[in-house]
């Protein structure tokens, strides 16, 4: 198939970007979207031109590196699909495809299609973990977890942190990402001790990075390559309200009188 890719080119964060058209021919319908970009880059390199910068790593839909806005949709038109797992059979011959970076204030462009997603890392560093002593792995089933809880936690844990939710959101909100990360730990016994601290710290970190607010458009879940449901955002709201109103981090120490003669 023959295609035209209209790609956002921007040499660095300091200069203005613009769209440029790249015609490409002889594309197999079995090419992945990234392989088309590779073809364009091979041509550009052979002509001594600057190749298009884009991010990728595993190419099997699990690492969360690929991040392209394809025809206005993060990861392109297919549901539950990352860019690397999007195949050209879902496009038609002669089509012009617009490719943009995932822009928001909290994820600025570094170059061409590459944006700085370290804001997501900083949210994770704030509290997106459990504090345990490392050592040998415990025996299986020493900590009981119900099947339904494990399933729910797994749905949340399948978030690959790509940031498609932020790119899809009209407010560039990171609520779905934070909701997934908070939920998967708060549902499991290992995450319970730091539960209220975690949600508070991650929401504060999210606010600090300059992401927007959820205003219930639910574009995030439609764009999510792992189909994280928007009900997790409601759960994040509940976790946060619970931590804010009842969490033991606030309100000082418990009154506990010592023995006096």
């Amino acid at each position, binding site marked *: 198939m023959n295609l035209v890719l209209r790609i956002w080119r921007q040499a660095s964060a300091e200069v203005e970007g613009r769209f440029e058209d790249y015609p490409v021919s002889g594309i197999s319908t079995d090419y992945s979207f990234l392989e088309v970009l590779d073809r364009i880059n091979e041509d550009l390199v052979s002509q001594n031109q600057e190749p298009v910068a884009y991010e990728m790593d595993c190419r099997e839909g699990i690492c969360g590196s690929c991040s392209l806005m394809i025809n206005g949709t993060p990861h392109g038109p297919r549901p539950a699909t990352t860019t690397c797992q999007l195949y050209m059979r879902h496009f038609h011959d002669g089509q012009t495809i617009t490719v943009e970076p995932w822009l928001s*204030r909290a994820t600025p462009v570094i170059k061409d299609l590459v944006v700085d997603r370290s804001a997501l890392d900083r949210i994770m560093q704030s509290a997106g973990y459990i504090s345990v002593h490392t050592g040998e792995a415990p025996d299986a089933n020493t900590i009981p977890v119900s099947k339904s809880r494990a399933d729910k936690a797994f749905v949340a844990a399948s978030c690959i942190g790509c940031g498609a939710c932020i790119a899809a959101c009209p407010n560039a909100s990171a609520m779905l990402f934070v909701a997934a990360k908070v939920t998967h730990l708060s549902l499991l016994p290992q995450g319970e001790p730091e539960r209220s601290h975690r949600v508070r710290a991650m929401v504060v970190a999210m606010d600090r990075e300059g992401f927007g607010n959820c205003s219930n458009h639910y574009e995030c879940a439609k764009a999510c390559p792992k189909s994280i449901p928007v009900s997790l955002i409601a759960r994040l709201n509940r976790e946060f309200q619970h931590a804010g109103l009842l969490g033991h981090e606030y309100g000082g120490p418990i009154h506990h009188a010592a023995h006096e003669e």
Partner: protein
Amino acid sequence: MKRLLYLLSTTIGRKLIVALTGIVLILFVVGHISGNLTIYIGQSALNNYAHFLQTSPMLWVMRLSMLAIVMLHVALGVAVTQENSLARPESCHAGQSWYLHVYQRRMIISGLVLLAFIAVHVAHLTLGAGIGEVFRLKDASGHVDVYSRVVTTFQNAWIAWAYIAAMMFLAIHLKHTVRAVFQTLGFSRESYFEFLEFLSWMVTLAVVGGFISIPLSVQLGWLALL
């Protein structure tokens, strides 16, 4: 207290306040339309209802609390919207049409239209601006004749249609809020989503349908001065 102030300093806390004040406002419009529908029972029913409200010892408590709640709702709504436009400075993606952009901004647009409507509505029907002599009419039992105020006002086609247009913005606002309130308050059962969507439509159609029916009935001559 420290906890509450802390909640307010976060984005989720601010939206929680918008949602909680929104619930009061939803209950207010539901109560408002229930009262308005007494106009179909007759002149004395509406006037008696209005008399009951105006002589209530809670009148000013209610008025001032509603004013405070509306102001809080609007102030935080505007603040949240500003934060959101800051977070996404590039307003349009390729392939994103202008009407999608307007649609995504529908809450702030309809909200500000409704704020203007409330100001005009209170000035007009409660304070009597632009109504003239009808404002001072009393009915047979000596109550303020709200019925005649309403019918005289809606006999003006411009006012009737402007009112209907404003109610369309109420419909846009209300349709979004009923389900969103549950989400923001943390009610997350997915099996309820369809029911909440249905509830959103029902509340919107019932409330807005009720409000619109009155100017339409006056315009069609079904409600007239007695």
